[in-house]
């Protein structure tokens, strides 16, 4: 896959998804269930705003010092015995990965779920070279068997398909003779993949967070596939986006604490694996060789733009679960690897306005995503700013440079500047005449985030309609 996942024009894509009532029902149920579980898990934790403010401050600090921490992480991982490779783009990253597999004469690789490997089309490159690549996350495995159908959500990839569909696919492709009970399907897949785990030459994983102080990479999974991929094969390759860093274990505590609650409404996932270097000489299992590939692939463009704070994202999927537009069109409607509010904020900078200006319209600016993001990514402001740029800039080809020169573009979500700006705006009743917002707000007023949650408003409206 790559950043673009759909092949239809946007309007046709949207029409197709809107007509898919099975999918819409599945996504709506999924959103409702996961949202209520998340609300409950944070309520139990308490101090919701304090956790978000702290997690957001940590992510923002990392971005501000990213050169320092990348340097430190690489040195520490190297000292622990890992090989660290810096890749500026998808071609370098996949090329190096393939080189490792070919050096090892590998014919089979097992993978645990990773967004960055999707972004750089790693599976396609390896498969073209004749290497068998097996996705081991249950949802991703089922989609792979289903003629490489695409994920519709970044955490629960097969949310758009039902049990009977998967029973039929497994019967057709893998000789499954059982019923459509999820437990029985899961047991069948367990047996199939167990063999692959034990015979694969290479394990490929992503990385949820990398600890700069110790050179540790971490993996968060429920199914145990992340542990398997880092236990059985003799070679392990980790691919990580360059912004995945935390300074120390003290910050990892905060990030782990908010990630599982946000993603699946659980306090923690079943497994959180912390890997520091390859296995020791006297260890008996684990990889003999550990390669860590750190990927830029457009992230530095985001870092230098006014949209830097979008890189805070920890890929929990919360904004998608809360989004009323996502509810009706699913991840497929956007036609981009990163869908939902995050996708709208990130993709136009990562991959350019030329190809991704239309998608920014898939948003009602209800602002709900901002209120639930566990690291306080300024999603609402970013999407709004994209729309402004697209509307006001005639020539979009060199917009990247203009990000740097524009006033508003520099302050989206940055703690110190943003506080200053809102304070300035606060003290002057109309448009501020001084301060960073001056130029921009001469023309228009700052949008206000609605006070009522969309969910609450909608629930109240439904209730009212029901009473009539």
């Amino acid at each position: 896959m790559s950043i673009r996942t759909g092949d239809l024009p946007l309007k046709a894509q949207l029409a197709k998804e809107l007509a898919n009532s099975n999918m819409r029902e599945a996504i709506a149920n999924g959103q409702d269930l996961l949202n209520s579980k998340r609300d409950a898990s944070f309520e139990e934790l308490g101090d919701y705003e304090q956790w978000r403010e702290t997690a957001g401050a940590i992510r923002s600090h990392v971005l501000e010092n990213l050169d320092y921490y990348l340097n430190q992480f690489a040195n520490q991982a190297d000292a622990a015995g890992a090989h660290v490779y810096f890749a500026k783009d998808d071609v370098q990253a996949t090329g190096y990965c393939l080189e490792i597999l070919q050096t090892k004469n590998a014919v089979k690789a097992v993978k645990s779920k990773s967004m960055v490997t999707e972004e750089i089309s790693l599976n396609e490159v390896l498969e073209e070279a004749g290497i068998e690549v097996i996705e081991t996350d249950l949802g991703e495995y089922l989609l792979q068997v289903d003629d490489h159908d695409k994920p519709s959500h970044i955490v629960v990839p097969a949310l758009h398909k039902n049990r009977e569909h998967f029973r039929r696919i497994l019967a057709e492709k893998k000789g499954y003779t059982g019923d459509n009970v999820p437990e029985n399907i899961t047991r069948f897949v367990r047996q199939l993949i167990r063999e692959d785990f034990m015979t694969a030459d290479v394990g490929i994983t992503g990385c949820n967070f990398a600890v700069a102080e110790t050179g540790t990479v971490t993996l968060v999974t429920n199914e145990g596939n992340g542990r398997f991929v880092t236990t059985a094969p003799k070679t392990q390759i980790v691919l990580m986006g360059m912004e995945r860093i935390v300074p120390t274990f003290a910050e990892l505590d905060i990030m782990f604490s908010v990630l599982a609650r946000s993603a699946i409404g659980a306090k923690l996932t079943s497994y959180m694996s912390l890997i520091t270097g390859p296995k020791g000489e006297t260890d008996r299992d684990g990889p003999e060789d550990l390669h860590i590939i750190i990927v830029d692939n457009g992230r530095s463009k985001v870092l230098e733009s006014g949209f830097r704070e979008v890189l805070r994202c920890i890929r929990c999927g919360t904004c998608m679960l809360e989004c009323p537009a996502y509810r009706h069109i699913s991840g497929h409607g956007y036609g981009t690897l990163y869908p939902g509010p995050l996708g709208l904020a990130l993709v136009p900078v990562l991959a350019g306005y030329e190809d991704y200006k239309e998608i920014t319209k898939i948003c009602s600016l209800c602002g709900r995503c901002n209120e639930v993001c566990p690291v306080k990514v300024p999603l609402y402001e970013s999407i709004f700013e994209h729309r402004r740029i697209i509307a006001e800039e005639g020539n979009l080809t060199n917009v990247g440079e203009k990000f740097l020169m524009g006033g508003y573009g520099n302050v989206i979500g940055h703690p110190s500047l943003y506080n200053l700006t809102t304070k300035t705006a606060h003290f002057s009743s109309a448009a501020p005449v001084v301060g960073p917002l001056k130029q921009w707000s001469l023309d228009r007023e700052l949008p206000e985030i609605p006070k009522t949650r969309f969910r609450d408003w909608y629930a109240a409206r439904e209730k009212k309609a029901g009473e009539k």
Partner: protein
Amino acid sequence: MITGKEQFVARVSSCLNRTKVPEHPTELVRPHQMQKNYLAGAPHRELIETFIANSHALGIDVHRCPVNDLTATLIQVIGEIDGPVILANDPLLTGKTAEILGREAGDCHVWDLGESRETNMNRAERAKVGIAVAELGLAETGSTLLFSHLDSGRSITLLPENSIIIVRAESIKPRLTQAMELLQRTEILPSSVNFISGPSATADIELVRVQGVHGPLELIYIIVD
């Protein structure tokens, strides 16, 4: 070995409007310290009770016994499962315990650094039960912290269908925060450290929870006093 760092990091520096990597990061100001409040100053009895309650909520079976009764408790728990056993090479489990378990279970192996990778992993793959000892238990989440290396290989708590983890009562702490403090104090980190919070599980088909995917189907804690 590191490849391509200088150029890559220089590009990142330039994106941050500077010409070289600073000698120190800016100060990290954490606005709140709410993570330290959880069960702060609670009596140890409460930590253990909370740990047990939260483990149960995750579908984990919990037993508790004095350390001298560990062998008897293990025999009882393993007897219900019936099948080959693999043990971590830990003072709590080896010696007399391993010997008695060997007689009872018939097929019982201790993770053996004198044997090859293949031999150890095949034993774990064949085993119905894997037994290891936790560094810590965490009350808030019913989690255990395991150092999965050397005498306690990664495979022990991963390959067998049933996983038994021994938790020393005095090692139970409030939450993840205290575990991270332990890791920060650990001079040489093991190559593999795992937090375990329940048996392997998924909800990938229609969000229906299924217990037991690639890792253990059942998880059992034995707390020893």
